[in-house]
């Protein structure tokens, strides 16, 4: 593979076996990255097909039933196979020990087990596609999910198994952060990405078991009909939604929190300014993790839950806006008067701020009962969660991938093509999804393969946008893969970052650091340090020597 001259984690051991049985967090992270990218591609293909069917009203390419299966698979693959593991298990696995100055995660074997459990879960999910794909939507609502003839069991069993992989990662990260920080790295000197991963791990460990129970109950209900959700036997179908969202609302923060962690890193590195409000950002991650458990009923305003319950959940939902807003304003304040440069990772950071602001604010709108009664299950909701999940998490993931790519592979990608792809993705995304806010507010329901003629123009734009997105991603795949083989060699610290992962070689050596690094400065001390040609220097030294302003 890469012809880097020095020994590193990529070339020290060779052959397929050395990868499959590796305990190195960097290699496991890369295997995860490979796997989630396949999932992303698969989910992407489903998405393009969905949009293709919606280009015109009426039935064009797929029957109603096939369409139902397509959107279910799109959602399930994107959520369970891609977005939940994407940042923590793939990028997080790679960078967490490096950022902490550790040799590896606390439990390397658990880490590998988590990957293989992911693979087994993914195989179950894929099997369900062959065996009569599910058509319930990724939410598996009863009573439909207990009665449809499609393969609900293998898909839910897949999600159940994937849950364990997620829990393993969470447990591992919590132990790693508690025990393996470099000497001198106190809790409030950790990079904010680490705080974000910590908060994420807590949610993973606390919430995921509930998903497991829910899906297991669903399977039992389907196979032997014990009557938990079936009112004919004294059950309650709305109870399923309570169970499901008790996991799935916190799960949306499993998705967004690590994305916010990445943005915190990127915004300081590319503004070359100390992060504004470090503690507030760190605490707001924990705040989000906590509040996220109290708001699930906002998905159920029209489900038949009691009015009192809706009121309580609506009230609590508004609180989520606070910690998210705190982060947003702190990032903006960090940029203020910074020396901002606009390399690809920073472009994604800025895109994130635009898109996540829209996603978050429309979430607050939906949290108001009076609005949600009208908007629920329309394209407005589809637009909202794509702005948060794709505009937020995926964009942050791409930013992080571009940021750490030189560290991971020791190669630089083409900045020019990265910008082209970024522009296509940013514009394509907005063309695809902004239109859907209008569609939804005009009454276009979600999960329909057919629609009234009046919606056609907007649907058309949305489909064109999806093609633009597709092209953007293909270009990205090309220049990234190309860079692994042919890209120019990357310096150890191409962006002038101050966190520990930049203090080792690119790519890192097998044990990450030549010797145990000791924390000598805080992660964002850009007011006193700078990096010139991979060398960390104190600004005062430069001033003294050359008597210039830095």
């Amino acid at each position, binding site marked *: 593979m890469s012809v880097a001259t020095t020994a590193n984690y990529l070339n020290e051991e060779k052959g397929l076996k050395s990868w499959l049985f590796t305990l190195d967090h960097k290699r496991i992270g890369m295997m995860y990255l490979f796997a989630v990218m396949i999932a992303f591609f698969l989910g992407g293909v489903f998405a393009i097909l969905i949009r293709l069917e919606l280009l015109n009203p009426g039935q064009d390419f797929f029957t109603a039933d096939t369409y139902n299966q397509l959107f279910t698979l799109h959602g399930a693959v994107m959520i369970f196979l891609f977005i939940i593991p994407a940042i923590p298990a793939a990028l997080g696995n790679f960078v967490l020990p490096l950022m902490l100055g550790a040799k590896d995660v606390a439990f390397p074997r658990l880490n590998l087990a988590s990957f293989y459990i992911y693979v087994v879960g993914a195989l179950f999910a894929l099997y369900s596609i062959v065996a009569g794909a599910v058509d319930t939507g990724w939410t598996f609502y009863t009573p439909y999910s207990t*009665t449809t003839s499609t393969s609900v069991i293998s898909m839910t069993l897949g999600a159940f198994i994937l849950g364990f992989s997620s829990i393993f990662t969470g447990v591992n990260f919590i132990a790693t952060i508690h025990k393996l920080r470099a000497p001198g790295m106190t809790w409030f000197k950790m990079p904010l990405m680490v705080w974000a991963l910590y908060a994420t791990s807590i949610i993973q460990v606390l919430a995921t078991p509930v998903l497991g129970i829910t899906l297991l109950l669903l399977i039992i209900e389907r196979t032997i009909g014990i009557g938990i959700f079936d009112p*004919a036997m004294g059950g*309650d179908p709305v109870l399923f939604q*309570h169970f499901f969202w008790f996991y799935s609302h916190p799960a949306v923060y499993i998705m967004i929190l690590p994305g916010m962690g990445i943005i915190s890193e990127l915004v300081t590195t590319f503004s070359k300014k100390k992060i504004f409000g470090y503690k507030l950002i760190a605490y707001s991650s924990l705040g989000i993790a906590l509040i996220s458990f109290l708001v*699930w009923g906002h998905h159920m305003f029209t489900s038949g839950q*009691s*009015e009192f319950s809706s009121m309580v959940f609506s009230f609590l939902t508004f609180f989520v806006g606070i910690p998210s807003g705190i982060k947003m304003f702190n990032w903006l304040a960090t940029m203020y008067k910074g020396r901002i440069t606009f390399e690809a990772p920073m472009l994604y950071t800025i895109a994130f701020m635009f898109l996540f602001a829209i996603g978050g604010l429309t979430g607050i709108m939906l949290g108001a009962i009076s609005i949600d009664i009208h908007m629920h299950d329309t394209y407005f909701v589809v637009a909202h969660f794509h702005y948060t999940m794709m505009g937020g998490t995926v964009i942050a993931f791409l930013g992080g991938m571009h940021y750490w790519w030189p560290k991971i592979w020791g190669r630089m990608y083409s900045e020019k093509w990265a910008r082209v792809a970024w522009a296509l993705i940013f514009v394509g995304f907005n063309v695809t999804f902004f239109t859907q806010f209008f569609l939804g507010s005009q009454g276009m329901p979600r999960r329909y393969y057919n629609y009234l003629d009046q919606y056609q123009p907007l649907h058309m734009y949305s489909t064109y946008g999806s093609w633009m997105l597709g092209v953007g991603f293909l270009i990205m795949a090309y220049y990234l893969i190309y860079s692994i083989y042919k890209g120019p060699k990357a310096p150890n610290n191409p962006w002038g970052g101050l966190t520990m992962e930049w203090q080792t070689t690119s790519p890192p050596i097998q044990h990450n650091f030549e010797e145990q690094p000791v924390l000598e400065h805080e992660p964002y001390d850009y007011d006193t340090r700078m990096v010139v040609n991979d060398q960390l220097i104190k600004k005062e030294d430069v001033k003294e020597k050359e008597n210039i302003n830095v």
Partner: protein
Amino acid sequence: MEQQNTATAHHVLPLSLYFTVAGVLFVLTGITVAISFVHFGEFNIIVAMLIATVKASLVALYFMHLKYDNKLFMAVFLSSLIFLGLFLTLTMTDTMHRGDIDPIKEHPIKKEAVFYNK
């Protein structure tokens, strides 16, 4: 490192304490049985749960050594209870109040609904 010691060190409790706790558990079991003959109406469940909770806590604290272990385990144990409580409480804001305003919501789906004519 200090933490590790407290976590692994074996705290040996006097046998008498075990017997006392066991005795209390038996007494509480007796009370549970006795009290089932008294009717508190709505409070039946509350009283029963209260006694059961005390018993479970005794088992966890003494027999399972939670009281003498690293406080982290206690925190983990308690937070799991808190989260269960949270789930039940917030779900009950729904199930206890269905039909308060709109009577149609009282029963999730009518048992006679066409859907169930399998």
